[in-house]
């Protein structure tokens, strides 16, 4: 067929079907296996970070009650918690996990374009996690420099882990970036060059748009982190002075001179701010699909949603110094970055309006993924509004380095993406395993997690307003630390422990349902996107039968008037298109 000749890639991927356990589950080139490898590793290391946050809360809620938490350990908890959550959990799970799983399936490809590179990507990521965790076993323990790793303090005596911990952290980050680059190149190339017939960019599900843009951001932002890691390693090991000014430490003049600590902050945040959107954009995309599917209604303003994702991605590169208002940089910079920061609220607000307008008068099914999606929209609005406070220089200055900041970024880039991740796992678990997750455990897990996070982070806004500083091991006898602060801190700790322990429900649900769950069938949510139309569930390596599916419509044909069902799969031709070219 002439049409077939245009798509030579259908046969291009050599699909292997290995038989030994090691070849199937460790050296697998199947994007779905790699996705699950990424997912399990990320969740595993994320649980470590969750335990660390529990330990921090114990100290903050009940200071002086726990002997094993000294100031050094506390700073190590902070640092490892932050870094693991942002990079090794959220980035890895959203892009390595969901990116890997969804991109070929939703685009209608057999696999990523370079499956071997994809496999290596996971292995390198695994090594980076091992190096990171190894910092608990080196002399002096992990670094306690805070997840931002600001020099000069990060590599000076007095900071925990200054001998080895900081090096394992930096090396682990560099290795992670290598892993991400190998994976990211695959995702972007697959989306750009290996979609199936009829799948134009403007017919892609928003999940893919979010993952695509986030990966592009990652490929362009991680270099800054890589460079700063290399330079800090050199400063630490061979005594260069990239980031180190002339400085005396413990009464002794050090050999450093002439470096620029501000340079590190610029490099770090040139990575760090796009990183926020590397985490947020896939969540935006995925939640759009969840809302549309479970509300049985097409997404409101699809094109606007796509352009908002693109606009946020572009703008995210010119807002980084809003993390540095109090760093001593020129005030005119602050003015510029405050302006760009507030402009980024426009596309973000468009997305929030479109989610709510999708829900308006929709046939909402209160499934667990839907609950998590609605919770996400609410939480994201809360976190976004506090962003307006912190984005303005004059309001930020008094709030800077207080618990208000902690509350803001946990709401907006901690809790929000995690809620989407939970929703997405409840949504796609049936496709990954062929079993439904248990609904009642899911509901319980949702309500404890959702309400619990509010019990944790809402009071932190108040703590910030009264001026409680963040990153303090103990608040001591400051005048602002009155009875209400102490009580709130205890309450937050109790809530945090409950939420932390409740995640056992989720893990239990994953394991239990795998063995005892109800069979899901190929398309339990009656969704339109291609991954639900695979011939087998879970799909085997290669995803499709001898022919790839052809796409005839966008991903959001729900409740179309006059249609047989309340959804029309993307691969379903309309009467006129059955024989003709898919793209009119």
């Amino acid at each position, binding site marked *: 067929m002439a049409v077939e000749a*245009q*798509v030579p*890639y259908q046969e*291009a991927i050599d699909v292997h079907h290995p038989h030994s356990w090691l070849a199937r589950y460790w050296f697998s080139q199947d994007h779905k296996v790699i996705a699950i490898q990424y997912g399990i590793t990320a969740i595993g290391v994320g649980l470590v970070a969750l335990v660390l946050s529990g330990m921090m809360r114990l100290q903050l809620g009940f200071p002086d009650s726990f002997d094993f938490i000294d100031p050094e350990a506390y700073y190590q908890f902070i640092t490892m918690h932050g870094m693991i959550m942002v990079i090794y959990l959220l980035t890895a799970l959203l892009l390595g996990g969901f990116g890997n799983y969804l991109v070929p399936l939703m685009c209608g490809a057999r696999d990523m*374009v*370079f499956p071997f590179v994809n496999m290596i990507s996971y292995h390198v990521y695994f090594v980076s996690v091992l190096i990171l965790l190894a910092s608990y076993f080196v002399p002096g323990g992990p670094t306690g420099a805070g997840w931002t790793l600001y020099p000069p303090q990060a590599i000076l005596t007095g900071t925990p882990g200054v001998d080895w911990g900081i090096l394992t952290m930096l090396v682990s980050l560099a290795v992670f970036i290598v892993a991400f*680059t190998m994976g*990211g*190149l*695959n995702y*972007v*190339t697959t989306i*750009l*060059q*290996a*979609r*199936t*017939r*009829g*799948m*134009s*960019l*403007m*017919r892609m599900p928003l999940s893919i748009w979010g993952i695509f843009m986030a990966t592009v951001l990652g*490929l*362009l*932002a*991680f*270099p*800054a982190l*890589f*460079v*700063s890691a*290399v*330079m800090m390693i*050199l400063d630490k090991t*061979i*005594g*260069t*002075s*990239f980031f180190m000014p*002339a400085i005396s430490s413990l009464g002794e003049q050090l*050999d450093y*001179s*002439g*470096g*620029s600590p501000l*340079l590190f902050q*610029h*490099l770090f945040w*040139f990575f760090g701010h796009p990183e926020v959107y590397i985490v947020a954009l896939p969540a935006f995309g995925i939640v759009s699909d969840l809302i549309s599917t479970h509300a049985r209604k097409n997404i409101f303003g699809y094109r606007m949603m796509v352009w908002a994702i693109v606009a946020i991605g572009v703008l995210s590169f010119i807002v980084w110094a809003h993390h540095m208002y109090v760093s001593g940089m020129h005030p005119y910079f602050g003015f510029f970055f405050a302006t760009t920061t507030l402009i980024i609220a426009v596309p973000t607000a468009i997305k929030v309006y479109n989610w709510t307008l999708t829900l308006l008068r929709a046939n909402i099914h209160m499934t667990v993924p839907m609950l998590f999606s609605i919770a996400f929209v609410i939480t994201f609005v809360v976190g976004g509004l506090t962003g307006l406070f912190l984005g303005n220089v004059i309001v930020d200055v008094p709030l800077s380095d207080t618990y208000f900041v902690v509350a803001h970024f946990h709401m907006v880039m901690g809790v929000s993406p995690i809620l989407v991740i939970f929703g997405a796992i409840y949504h796609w678990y049936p496709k990954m395993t062929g079993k439904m997750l248990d609904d009642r455990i899911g509901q319980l897990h949702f309500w404890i997690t959702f309400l619990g996070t509010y019990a944790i982070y809402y009071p932190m806004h108040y703590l910030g307003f009264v001026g409680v500083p963040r990153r303090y091991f103990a608040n001591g006898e400051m005048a602002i630390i009155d009875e209400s602060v102490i009580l709130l801190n205890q309450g937050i700790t109790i809530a945090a422990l409950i939420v932390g322990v409740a995640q056992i429900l989720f893990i239990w649900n994953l394991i239990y349902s795998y063995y005892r769950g109800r069979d899901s069938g190929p398309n339990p949510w009656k969704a339109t996107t291609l991954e639900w139309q695979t011939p087998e569930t879970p799909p085997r390596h290669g995803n499709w039968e001898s022919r790839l599916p052809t*796409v005839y419509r966008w991903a959001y044909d729900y409740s179309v008037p006059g249609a047989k069902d309340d959804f029309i799969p993307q691969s379903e031709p309309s009467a006129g298109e059955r024989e003709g070219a*898919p*793209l009119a």
Partner: protein
Amino acid sequence: MAEATSTQRLQLVEDWAADVAVFRGVPWGKAMMWIFLLSDTFIFSCFLTSYMTVRMTSAEAWPNPSEVFALEAFGVPVPLLLIAIMTFILISSSGTMAMAVNMGYRRKRVGAALLMVVTALFGASFVGMQAFEWYKLIVEEGVRPWGNPMGAAQFGSCFFMITGFHGLHVSAGVVYLLIVAYRVWRGRYEEKGYDIVEITGLYWHFVDLVWVFIFAFFYLW
């Protein structure tokens, strides 16, 4: 002329609106290499921007590159002599690389392989001269990453870090070229076609281009 550009613009819109592939007829490997190079550009940009920043913040005077990098020829110090030769070699290697790509697409595989080996030899000699330059700076002039007798310590730090990172790129490129040349010579790409030569070439030209920037910012500024 104006008409041609407007059709080109329409073509662009058409490509991005199409199904299957945005860049029609572009093999996956080539698309991936372009995207990788874009990412790598950001790495080098960060390195060079950092270099400029510390050059401005450092309190001490910056050493004069024309003196530091001068080479004694016939008893007279000639500024930038070695660098001029190195740059010339690297740019020549881009020329042989382009000829290799041409040979590949004309399916003259032995010629393509030979030209790639010549390119790799140019690259190896570049790395060798760089080693000589480092040797001269370290042993004869006493420049160290943490300090030097001529002025600001950041001069040595930036120089060794950036040229070292670029040198690693060139060395990796030499290995890459030799592997691909061997495979081309063995006829491994007879069926698949010789896009791989062009993809290797993209990387090689990129490394050359980066050198032009390093040359300009380090040696001429």
